[in-house]
């Protein structure tokens, strides 16, 4: 089947006025402005098939939101081609957005002063949803997202998690075939995150909605996505199965150990000392090769440990490892 999204050599460059320092600089800035080009998206190509649930991840400023905005028809790219569901998003904005749903981080689509239910009802008219269809969807989402407790509350009084749930409902009321979620779990606690992840999973499985999800929280993708795209500095670093990513780059962890006293020699087999600060030493180790408890055993055989904590790799670690791997594999790549 034809892919629902086809992106080829996508570029988006922003011109940003360079700020000059000091009073004289500000004055010169008035007279002649100097511009700097930010390559937010710098030559990205991919295809996404119907029904996929893709994690689009990368560190802050990588270009995730910019890509999503282009796919959603909000932003016109500098170069490249984009076909979403047979349309060029920004050329046919109205018919395009009628077939997609989108939630952008903490910005709400709902009317600030209206109770949630009234916002949802208004969207019924905005998207021209048949009443029967609207009733059925609303009933289903109310149950899935547990909306009932705050359906009559004005949007401005909702907690962040509640607002995200209301926004997810709003984005799905018109049965979009595509759902864009830009950092849907940002700022939420563990319980709220989990509820949202469950909803995303169910929507994808039960309705076959194609979903692209951006995040800089690796646990989002680990729990949800089979396919992962990693972007950094506007370029695609990895596009493939989550399992492959895990095998090649995953498993890296860090352990911070607080010793009873300052030791001269803290090195240990199977881990690398990343940083040292008095009694506090940070080790990095590969979870495939050695478990945390083995490592603790090796260290405590020689030194007295007072306290420790283990940290999973985050997206920055992952990106760094990909770069390192690339440097080793193909010195002239990129």
């Amino acid at each position, binding site marked *: 089947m034809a892919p629902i999204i086809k992106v080829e050599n996508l570029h988006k460059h*922003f*011109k940003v006025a360079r700020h000059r320092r000091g009073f004289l600089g500000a004055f010169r800035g008035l007279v002649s402005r100097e511009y700097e080009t930010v390559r937010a998206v710098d030559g990205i190509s991919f295809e996404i098939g119907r029904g996929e649930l893709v994690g689009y991840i990368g560190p802050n400023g990588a270009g995730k939101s910019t890509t999503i*905005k282009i796919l*959603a*028809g*909000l*932003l*016109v790219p500098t170069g490249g081609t984009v076909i979403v569901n047979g349309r060029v998003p*920004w050329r046919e*904005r*109205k*018919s395009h*957005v*009628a077939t997609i749903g*989108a939630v*952008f981080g903490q*910005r*709400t*689509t709902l*009317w*600030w*002063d*209206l109770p949630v239910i*009234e916002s949802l009802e*208004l969207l019924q*008219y*905005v*998207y*021209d949803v048949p009443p029967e269809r609207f009733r059925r969807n609303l009933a289903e989402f109310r149950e899935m997202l547990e909306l009932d407790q705050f359906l009559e509350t004005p949007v401005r009084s909702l907690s962040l998690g509640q607002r995200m749930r209301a926004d997810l409902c709003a984005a799905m009321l018109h049965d979009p075939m595509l759902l864009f979620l830009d950092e849907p779990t940002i700022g939420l606690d563990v319980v709220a995150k989990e509820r949202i992840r469950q909803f995303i999973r169910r929507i994808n499985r039960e309705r076959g909605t194609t979903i692209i999800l951006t995040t800089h929280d690796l646990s989002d993708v680990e729990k949800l996505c089979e396919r992962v795209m990693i972007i950094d500095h506007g370029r695609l670093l990895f596009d493939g199965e989550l399992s492959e990513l895990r095998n090649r780059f995953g498993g890296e962890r860090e352990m911070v150990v607080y010793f009873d006293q300052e030791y001269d020699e803290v090195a240990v087999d199977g881990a690398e000392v990343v940083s040292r600060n008095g009694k506090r030493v940070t080790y990095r180790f590969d979870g495939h090769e050695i478990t945390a408890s083995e490592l603790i055993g090796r260290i405590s055989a020689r030194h007295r440990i007072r306290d420790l904590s283990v940290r999973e790799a985050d997206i920055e670690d992952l990106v760094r490892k990909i770069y390192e791997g690339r440097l080793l594999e193909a010195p002239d790549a990129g």
Partner: protein
Amino acid sequence: MRRTIDIYLRLISVQIRSQMQYRASFLMSLSATALITFLGFGSLAMVFWRFDNIGGWTLWEVGFLYGMVEAAFGTMDLFFSGFNPHIFSRLIRMGTLDQILLRPLSVTLQVLGSSFIMKRLSRISQGALIFVISVAMLDVHWTPAKVAYLPLVFFGLMCFFGGFFVIGSTLTFWTVQPIEVVNIFTYGGREMIAYPMHIYERWMRDFFTYIVPAIFLNYYPALYFLEKPDPFGMPDFAPFLAPVVGVGMLVASFAFWSYGIRHYQSTAT
């Protein structure tokens, strides 16, 4: 078309209901605006009490100009609330414009439906009251043509000033903050044409005739309604340009607006 109107009314009704939620502050601002407008006309009346005319026009003749502009501008201010540059620039800064672009409706329709400042009603009714009283005192010689033309002048004034709102808002795509210069045209223009144009210096009048043709929106129609001679010797059709100039202004400003939206979609501030 019916769907458009239906959606528009629903969007506006949201705005009205939100304002009703803050009822106390709503009523306060309503009466405050009423007071300010009345004081405005009151001080004008004081001038007449001392000089008994302005450029040869009586209080009620000036009241005709004044009331007409106040009511028309106020009505525009109400319906174009969303295009008020100060309100619109907030829409951009808060990212609401992105939400608007995400909905399968015209952007213009949604901006019009994004704000509806009810307290403008006080200004509208003050203006209408001053206008009605002035007309009553003046003993205007009404003909069917004059009765038919009056709403067109009102409409022309609305479109004309609405155009300035749209231009002012469009400029915020580039500047983010609203620009004061636009206010000089919008609010300065409103103040100017509330008085007979022949009292101003030549260069000022020329500016508001040939560059910003505000003179045709209020002064010339008033000459026609009040059957006064034209001191500047314009062609006979000059009093009838109000709707043409107004609509032309609005159409041109919406062309600029579409250009601005395209610019926004390629930069997204």
